[in-house]
């Protein structure tokens, strides 16, 4: 039986890629360690090695093919004594999504029997659900003039464009962080910046978060406009002293004399299957600190417009991105200078029965839940907070006055969360508008597990949102 070579997943979030180049042809003999092909992901071009020995029987996906799903059979290797006719790929074809999942057929007869339902053919994780929901699009932002031309842009590109535009306008703006320059960004957010702006303004740092966060803050105090990238906000814990004690408090402590206009940015929250230490949402930590601005955009247009605003403001900003969102494409207005106001929430969907408040990737599942609810006759309004400090309580309370019911959706723990804060705001200022208790729909109260099934159980999802919405509308 020929060995099937399948399109590999080369990063935690990769679902498809481009088969850029074959380095072997049919009939070539290969051994483990030989480079078979070059595969482009949305982040990088990677070499794909053989792990089996034999002869290349057939190549079923030609080089240059885009959007090859992970798990698609791309070639076969014949073992000794096999002929080419054994090599006809029997199942998956390139780009055939239905067949994309690798079939884990145990080759060994003695493999232990698998209990029914315990092991899905393809591990489906909670983050995959989040990503799937994150394709949902909100209604047009009224801040964008009607008739503006829109360009499909990934969140990743939108963030990069925001930085590039601001760097072109203001020489004081520079980017520093780990792998931001030569490597083009650990998540490719700074791709191309080194080429355009040079190493004076795009600066690779050693792996020393505490040190370079302090250097950034000091440079901001001295009059520059640093953008400090954390590879993820999990690592910013090493630097949180400078974010809180140096950046957030300086203006106040100096009686308004010394400012710290800096942006700390990077991915925050759950990524895919990376376990407890790399999956933490720190939004509520930073949002609790006066002196900071905290922004967490959902789609690409907001990512761009808000990052530009963050770079321009005189105040220190914590700008929370989401790795799972980087590769998602959305319409971004083709405007010379798309800058959005800080501190203004956005109504992503209008409705009259229940308000769903969320931010960042939670907006996607909220929008998905709203569609499900609509089919069941519940008309949900979805609010994207966009800025977490200062909170746009006015938009939240206004919506509550209309719907009289609210749930808050957050990819975070519920305890001491942004959701908790919204609940408090509503208790203090919207009590008379409430027809039901406000519910928090959040992750389970445990560290992020690694196993796909547990990750799925741990994370918030659209079904939980639907359930909560029914509960507060008394329709379950």
């Amino acid at each position: 039986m020929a060995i099937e070579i399948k399109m590999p997943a080369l990063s935690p979030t990769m679902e498809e890629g481009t088969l850029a180049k074959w380095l072997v042809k049919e009939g070539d003999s290969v051994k483990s360690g030989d480079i078979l092909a070059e595969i482009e992901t949305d982040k990088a071009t990677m070499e794909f090695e053989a792990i089996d020995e034999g002869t290349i029987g057939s190549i079923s996906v030609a080089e240059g093919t885009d959007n090859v799903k992970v798990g698609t059979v791309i070639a076969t290797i014949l073992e000794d004594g096999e002929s080419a006719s054994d090599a006809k790929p029997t199942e998956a074809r390139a780009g055939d999504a239905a067949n994309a999942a690798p079939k884990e057929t145990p080759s060994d007869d003695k493999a232990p029997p698998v209990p029914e339902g315990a092991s899905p053919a393809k591990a489906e994780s909670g983050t995959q659900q989040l990503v799937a929901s994150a394709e949902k699009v909100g209604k047009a932002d009224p801040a964008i003039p009607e008739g503006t031309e829109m360009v499909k842009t990934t969140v990743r590109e939108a963030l990069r464009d925001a930085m590039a535009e601001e760097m072109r306008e203001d020489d004081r703006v520079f980017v520093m962080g780990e792998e931001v320059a030569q490597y083009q960004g650990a998540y490719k957010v700074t791709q191309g910046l080194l080429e355009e702006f040079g190493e004076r303004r795009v600066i690779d740092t050693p792996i020393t978060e505490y040190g370079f966060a302090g250097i950034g803050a000091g440079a901001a105090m001295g009059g520059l406009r640093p953008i400090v990238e954390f590879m993820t906000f999990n690592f910013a814990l090493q630097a949180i002293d400078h974010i809180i004690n140096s950046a957030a408090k300086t203006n106040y402590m100096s009686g308004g004399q010394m400012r710290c206009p800096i942006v700390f940015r990077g991915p925050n929250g759950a990524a895919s299957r990376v376990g407890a230490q790399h999956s933490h949402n720190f939004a509520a930590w930073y949002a609790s600190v006066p002196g900071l601005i905290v922004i967490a955009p959902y789609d690409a247009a907001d990512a761009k417009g808000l990052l530009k605003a963050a770079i321009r403001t005189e105040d220190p900003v914590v700008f929370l991105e989401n790795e799972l969102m980087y590769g998602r494409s959305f319409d971004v207005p083709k405007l010379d200078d798309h800058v959005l106001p800080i501190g203004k929430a956005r109504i992503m969907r209008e409705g009259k029965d229940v308000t769903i408040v969320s931010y960042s990737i939670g907006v996607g599942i909220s929008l998905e839940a709203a569609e499900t609810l609509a089919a069941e006759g519940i008309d949900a309004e979805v609010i994207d907070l966009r800025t977490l400090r200062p909170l746009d309580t006015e938009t939240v309370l206004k919506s509550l006055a209309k719907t009289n019911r609210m749930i808050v959706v957050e990819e975070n723990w519920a305890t001491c969360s942004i959701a908790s804060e919204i609940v408090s705001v509503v208790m203090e200022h919207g009590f008379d508008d409430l027809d039901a208790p406000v519910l928090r729909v959040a992750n389970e109260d445990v560290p992020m597990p690694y196993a796909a099934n547990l990750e799925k159980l741990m994370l918030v999802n659209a079904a939980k949102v639907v359930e909560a919405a029914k509960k507060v509308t008394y329709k379950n």
Partner: protein
Amino acid sequence: MAKTPPPVRAIAEPPITNRERPAEPKPYEPSKDELLEMYRQMLLIRRFEEKAGQLYGLGLIGGFCHLYIGQEAVAVGLQSALDGETDSVITGYRDHGHMLAYGIDPKVIMAELTGRGSGISKGKGGSMHMFSTEHKFYGGHGIVGAQVSLGTGLAFKHKYSNDGGICMAYFGDGAANQGQVYESFNMAELWKLPIIFVIENNQYAMGTSVNRASAEDQLYRRGESFRIPGIQVDGMDVLACRGAAEEAIAWVRAGKGPVILEMKTYRYRGHSMSDPAKYRTRDEVQAVRDKSDPIDHVKKLLDAQGVTEADLKTLEQDIRKIVNEAADFAEQTPEPDAADLYTDVLVESY
């Protein structure tokens, strides 16, 4: 039969190649007027700090209050070598002396200590958090060691903007053990940033003596593994301080990267006003006061230059007057308006 392993060859290269180092500093040779000015500044700091200690005792100053008494030669000697137009300074919470050495009005410093609206930080900062961007004095930081990274950032700014300035970042022997200090050393040397790291080694990190806390207690060597040269300086001798500053500044301005100056000094008072200083003997403190006092030292030099006792008395009276006026101002000027509670949290409105 087992094969004989190949012989292990010694590596011929020496472990550390010879590197250029700053020249050995020489004591500064001041004019009579310069020496008199140094004396005046040190005495102003001494009298100011004594008054601050007194006001603390009266309950007019609250919280933490870290006095600079004994260490005056460091700030005065080093500061006198800087270019006030271009160079920046940053320090920790023992910051009153540095501000006075920078010529900042004693009144607004004392009023900040008493928490008044006309204090330099509008009464919102206090003893540990004072700034004067006008004088390029960037604080006044309460987290031990934070000013080292922040100062490295200021140096980064000087280089980025090519403004010709350098940064002088002061920190203590206690801060010298913080991790971020070494992260900053690494980047400062890697990027050849114009910064002088000044370790004010006053022998005690709060109550812990240097040799109880530091595996390498010769702190000027702490930059060796980052290729940052270090110089140990008698921090009780203002002319030695100034001389070392001259060498360090020449090195840094030439684009050769950072320098570490370890200033061996001593604080006479406790770590803060609330420190009973049980970790050292009264005799130890008295011995330093008798033998190495930085102000007495300059007094002798002035005497040798023919400055009379009467001249110094007049100077002393002038300083006492300045300090008393600062104290009166700090007592009488009102507390901040209640409305100021909510100002300066953010710069912009959203």
